[in-house]
């Protein structure tokens, strides 16, 4: 579904991530773990067209998206849920969701699926998104991404600002989505949660991929355990 | 008296503001050279009254542009009342010296004071209502147009649309253009020196800090509000005095002398072209556009069209102004040289 090769990107002329390569198969859930500043967001931004690449190729669903702009990539079926969410604060939940389906009109079926998955959103259909709590906004951001019926959803630290119970709920929802055929790419600092859902993972530190493997392999890897799972 | 330990010295180095250390030559050399070059103009064109009139206008606009540079270039306050502030100075000084019989220098001084008070007032508004560029522009534009209307309306004092003849000072309406030229040039040099001195002082450092990042400047202890008001006051004073000096040198002022269309539009274009925030940008811009204006006169009807085309082309090409573009070029050449021969 997604192939990234030799990706380098950065800010103000300096590369923050160098020679990143990874891939995701159809229906897989892949996670990228790493500490703050490792470069996860930079990688996502570059893949999704929000940040220019200094080098590298990205292939999505067989087609190259390396030179496409963000809105084209979104229309191609790659939905990105950034850490900052970027919702439309003066618009209601319903309007935000409707825009997710752009350029098509919102599909009522998809919308009801979203409301089923996130019952709190259903209660606040007509509430302005700017006045909602962090957790609700996170749900709305994911819901908006779902409205475009994407093939791949990229989530950047979806549990930021969520209370532990809500974070678990969120991952349960993601598991449901994966069961329905959605491919997932998740950047996460909450490593146990991420590894519980993911099939495979990559460890990103200091701008390059340090480790890769299946979720089980990573979980039992002593370095990973020491660095991210708090085990001595 | 505490001992100067290495720690104290290090601390002082860190906290001392980075003032550009310029040699006297580097600081004032450009001004002297420019002044010398401009001073030669009458030697070549002194005979032609028409050319000299243009030259005087050019120098006058350069002074306006330097003053505007102090206000806008230093602190980003878009005062669209350059002409009006100069006009306040001009009419005030003219009325005081002709009608009230005040001595020339005192009239000019008071006129400058009045303008600077207005400038301070505008800056105070900008600061206290947190006005951004557009809003500052509109408020000051309102003043400009209001000023024009007052001048038109109060014809007993201002002569209305007929203009005002000013008798005090070198009345050279129809006469010799050379004295006004050198008077205005002297004023221009003075203003350039003031600008340079500001740049090199702690005020200039504060200006640069707040231009770069206002929040960071506040956090570093720069009272942004106060420095904005300084800029507005000093710049407005310069405008008032320039307007007054012009009124006395030219001997005649009218509606178009200080109008928005006649002054502000031109000054903004000149400064933006030359380079906002640079020392000689205003001069370069004034010279360029004064010459251009004259050149375009021969096109009669199409003059405005060509002026517009020139503005578009120039600003597409030199978005930051000519001098910054030039500086950028020099830097790139220097960088390329450095890379080619690592020391």
């Amino acid at each position, binding site marked *: 579904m997604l192939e990234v090769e030799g990706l380098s990107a950065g800010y103000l002329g300096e590369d923050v991530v160098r020679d990143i390569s990874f891939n995701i198969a159809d229906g897989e859930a892949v996670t990228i773990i790493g500490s703050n500043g490792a470069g996860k967001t930079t990688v996502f931004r570059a893949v999704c*067209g*929000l940040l220019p690449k200094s080098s590298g190729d990205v292939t999505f669903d067989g087609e190259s998206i390396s030179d496409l*702009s*963000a*809105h084209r990539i*979104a229309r191609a079926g790659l*939905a*990105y849920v*950034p850490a*900052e*969410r*970027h*919702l*439309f*604060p*003066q*618009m209601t939940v319903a309007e935000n969701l*409707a*825009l*997710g389906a*752009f*350029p098509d009109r919102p599909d009522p079926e998809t919308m009801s699926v979203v409301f089923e998955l996130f019952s709190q959103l259903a209660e606040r259909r007509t509430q302005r998104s700017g006045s909602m709590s962090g957790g609700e906004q996170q749900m709305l951001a994911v819901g*908006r991404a779902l409205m*475009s019926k994407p093939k791949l959803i990229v989530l950047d630290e979806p549990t930021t600002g969520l209370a532990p119970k809500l974070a678990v709920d969120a991952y349960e929802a993601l598991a449901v989505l994966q069961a329905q055929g959605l491919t997932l790419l998740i950047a996460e600092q909450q490593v146990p949660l991420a590894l519980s859902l993911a099939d495979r993972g990559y460890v990103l530190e200091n701008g390059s991929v340090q480790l890769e493997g299946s979720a089980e392999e990573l979980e039992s890897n002593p370095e990973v355990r020491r660095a991210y799972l708090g085990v001595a | 008296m505490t001992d100067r330990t290495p720690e104290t010295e290090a601390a002082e180095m860190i906290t001392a503001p980075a003032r550009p250390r310029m040699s006297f030559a580097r600081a004032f050399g450009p001004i002297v050279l420019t002044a010398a070059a401009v001073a030669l103009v009458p030697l070549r064109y002194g005979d032609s009254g028409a050319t000299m009139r243009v030259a005087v206008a050019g120098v006058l606009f350069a002074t306006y542009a330097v003053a505007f540079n102090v206000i806008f270039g230093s602190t*980003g306050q878009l005062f669209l009342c350059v002409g009006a502030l100069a006009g306040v100075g001009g009419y005030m000084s003219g009325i005081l010296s002709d009608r009230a019989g005040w001595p020339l220098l005192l009239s000019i001084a008071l006129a400058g004071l009045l303008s600077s008070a207005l400038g301070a007032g505008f800056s105070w*508004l900008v600061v206290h*209502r947190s*006005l*951004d*560029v*557009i*809003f500052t522009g*509109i*408020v000051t*534009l*309102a003043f400009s*147009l*209001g000023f024009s*209307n007052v001048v*038109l*309306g109060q014809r007993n004092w201002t002569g209305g649309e007929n203009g005002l003849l000013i008798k005090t000072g070198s009345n050279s309406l129809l006469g010799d253009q050379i004295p006004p030229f050198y008077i205005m040039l002297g004023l221009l040099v003075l203003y350039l020196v003031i600008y340079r001195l500001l740049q090199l002082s702690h005020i200039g450092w504060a200006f640069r800090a707040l231009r770069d990042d206002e929040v960071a400047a506040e956090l570093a202890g720069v009272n942004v509000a106060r420095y904005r008001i300084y800029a507005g006051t000093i710049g407005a004073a310069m405008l008032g005095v320039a307007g007054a000096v012009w009124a006395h040198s030219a001997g005649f002022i009218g509606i178009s002398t200080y109008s928005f269309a006649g002054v502000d*539009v031109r000054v*903004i*274009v000149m400064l*933006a072209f030359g380079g906002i925030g640079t020392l000689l940008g205003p001069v370069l811009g004034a010279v360029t556009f004064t010459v251009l204006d004259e050149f375009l006169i021969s096109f009669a*009807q*199409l*003059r*405005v*069209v*060509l*002026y*517009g*085309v*020139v*503005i*578009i082309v120039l*600003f*597409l090409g030199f*978005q930051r102004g000519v001098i910054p573009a030039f500086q950028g070029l020099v830097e790139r050449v220097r960088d390329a040289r450095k890379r080619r021969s690592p020391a």
Partner: protein
Amino acid sequence: MRAVVFDGIVLGLQFGLLGVGLTLVYGLGGILNLAHGPMAVLGAIVVANSMDAGAPVLLAVALGLVSIGVFGLLLDSTLMRAVYRLTGERRVLLSLLLTLGVAFVIDGLLVWRYPINSLGIHIGGDPVSILGVRMRTGSLVASAISLAAGAVLVVFFRFSTAGRAVRSVIQDEVGARLCGINPTAVRTLIFGLSGVLAALVAVTRSMTSPITTTAGIDLTILALIVTVVGGLGSVAGAFLAGIILGIVNTVSSFYIGTYITTIMLLLAAALTIILRPSGILGRRG
């Protein structure tokens, strides 16, 4: 007095329409289009020339609207590219300078080629009495058109997918891109729309009093005042502000004099900036 107020409303609706184009472009791209007034006048001249060439009124008006709309599209996709590469204050400044140049070019060309042209559309019919005030049919038609245009705009922005897309770009451009919306295309389209609206104002103005070639700058200043008072980026605000300012205009013209009127309007703008910078319906920041 009532007649004066009604006249003010008629004028105000057109003020509103004039301001809407400018406020949309500013809300979307942070660009101040100083050529807005000249564009309106250009529209008027196109319509006038078409009518002189024998075209029926409706066709001539359509021609005018389309031509200035296209002009707006072209202007945004060419000159404004340079402006969009900048951000914040530098973007505003460059947009001011470039559109100033465009304003000079349009104004200069019009004055040069059509120095005495003016557009005046005469709507026949007897004056109609509304609430005891006799209104000319021209004023009524002009007001109806302005109201209709306003209504269409409001409906468009609130309820249509495209309109929602435009609002999304104003509220969060990155978010809009993630939804598959192309902000550049949106900005160009809205610039074109502002051109259509400018031409429409010229047409409706001409129904009450002729528009001359030199009206460009005044129209821009008027649009600016309306935009500021109504709130940068607010369509409804522009109309509301327009009506208020229209009434201020006619009242002050009638009781004090046309001279002071311009100052009054500018004072209104200045006061709004000082007292309520976000405008009547605008949002701060």
